[in-house]
């Protein structure tokens, strides 16, 4: 497979996903709405003052991001299954690793938009300084981890009748390292302990690299019959 062919194939899938989302506006708007509701609920439910604000706030931020991601990734896989469109893609000679990367890029585009909105809203609602490079970097690494797992698992979950339940059931156990590392790193950065956060950031980066390789190699088996 020559690189230009793979790039053209990747671009074709990403362009299709962007056009479909632009037409339907279902994924991003649904995820943003969910995340906003979650943040509003946390904002009114808990007394977030002092140090507690940074600790509980980091948890609230990641709960909103994780569940919004799940919502979007599950919906994305369902759209692919409509009218056999996903089978059409699988019939083509696109390398399954390239297809994985294409779906990953699409997911990251949409999740990145949601992250941006959520971070701005979170900063406004909670008064926590999250709009700075270390926090944005941690959110980016955590989002990449969730997108990697979701991209890998959602085609499998989408073939079942219990797809809405199955994706979280499959994804959460694998996402535990991402969730713990992302929350811990965010808390440590927000409480001005960036040196201690470094180990968690390395764990996040390692997880992302590992599942990038795993996903690239086994996506064919996950996506096909």
């Amino acid at each position, binding site marked *: 497979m020559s690189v230009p062919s793979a790039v053209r194939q990747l671009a074709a899938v990403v362009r*299709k996903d962007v056009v479909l989302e632009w037409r339907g506006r279902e994924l991003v708007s649904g995820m943003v709405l969910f995340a906003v509701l979650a943040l509003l609920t946390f904002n009114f439910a808990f007394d977030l003052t002092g140090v507690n604000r940074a600790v509980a706030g980091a948890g609230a931020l990641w709960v909103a991001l994780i569940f919004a991601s799940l919502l979007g990734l599950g919906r994305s896989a369902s759209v692919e299954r409509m009218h056999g469109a996903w*089978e059409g893609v699988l019939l083509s000679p696109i390398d399954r690793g390239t297809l994985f990367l294409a779906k990953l890029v699409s997911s990251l585009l949409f999740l990145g938009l949601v992250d941006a909105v959520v971070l701005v809203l979170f900063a406004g609602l909670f008064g926590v300084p999250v709009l700075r490079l270390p926090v944005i970097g941690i959110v980016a690494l955590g989002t990449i981890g969730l997108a990697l797992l979701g991209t890998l698992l959602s085609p499998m979950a989408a073939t079942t009748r219990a797809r809405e339940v199955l994706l979280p059931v499959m994804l959460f156990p694998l996402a535990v390292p991402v969730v713990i590392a992302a929350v811990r790193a965010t808390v440590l950065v927000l409480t001005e302990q960036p040196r201690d956060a470094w180990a968690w950031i390395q764990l996040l980066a390692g997880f992302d690299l590992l599942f990038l390789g795993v996903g690239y190699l086994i996506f064919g088996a996950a996506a096909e019959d």
Partner: protein
Amino acid sequence: MAAVSPLIRATGLSKRYGVRRVLRDVSLTLGPGEAVVIVGPNGAGKSTLLRILATLVRPSAGTVWYFDTPGLPLAQIRRRLGFVGHQTLLYEDLTVAENLRLYAGLYALDNVAARIARVVELLGIAHLAHERVRTLSRGQQQRAGLARALLHDPTILLFDEPDTGLDQQGRQLLHALIAEHCQRGGAVLLTTHAVDFATTVATRQFQLCDGQLWPLPEGQAASPIPAPVGGDHVRP
């Protein structure tokens, strides 16, 4: 006459879904210029057989050789297969042209605009190229699905009930497409419930019943089920 290498040689194909056996020891060859038609009742295993040959489903047992070459990479096989299934395999919120552009990208085709213009013209849907698939009638969607399958000039066409939803004009068009494809040295394997359509397009006919494939003698209608016949196409 010199022996011609088959484009597809399927041997001893079986498929199980749990305890249910959908295909039993099916063997079939498809040569250049052939239009092989498989008829059979609902649930006989026709779609499963075509989906196996299209590389969408793995058989539980048996082998398929494409282009008389064992172990050919799947990407090379898929590049030369055109498949039409029960569903359109199109994104309904994209236009016909956008769907075809997507497939042109997936197949890494050149001269994309010219190819798209050719197939939509061929299928009589040029005026619908910029309509979203969801707004088209069933027959128009079927034509769009056929355009998708023909876009990359495949050697082997695998059509699962391609006449579904087509009007008389559409069927005549499909008939002409199949005939022209075979004349150019390609091959077509299709399933249908329309016995008259099968009779007019087929160079060979089979009946699939309870997962087993039976040859139909030339000119014979699809039912009743014929007695099993020996030979390289059948493994009763």
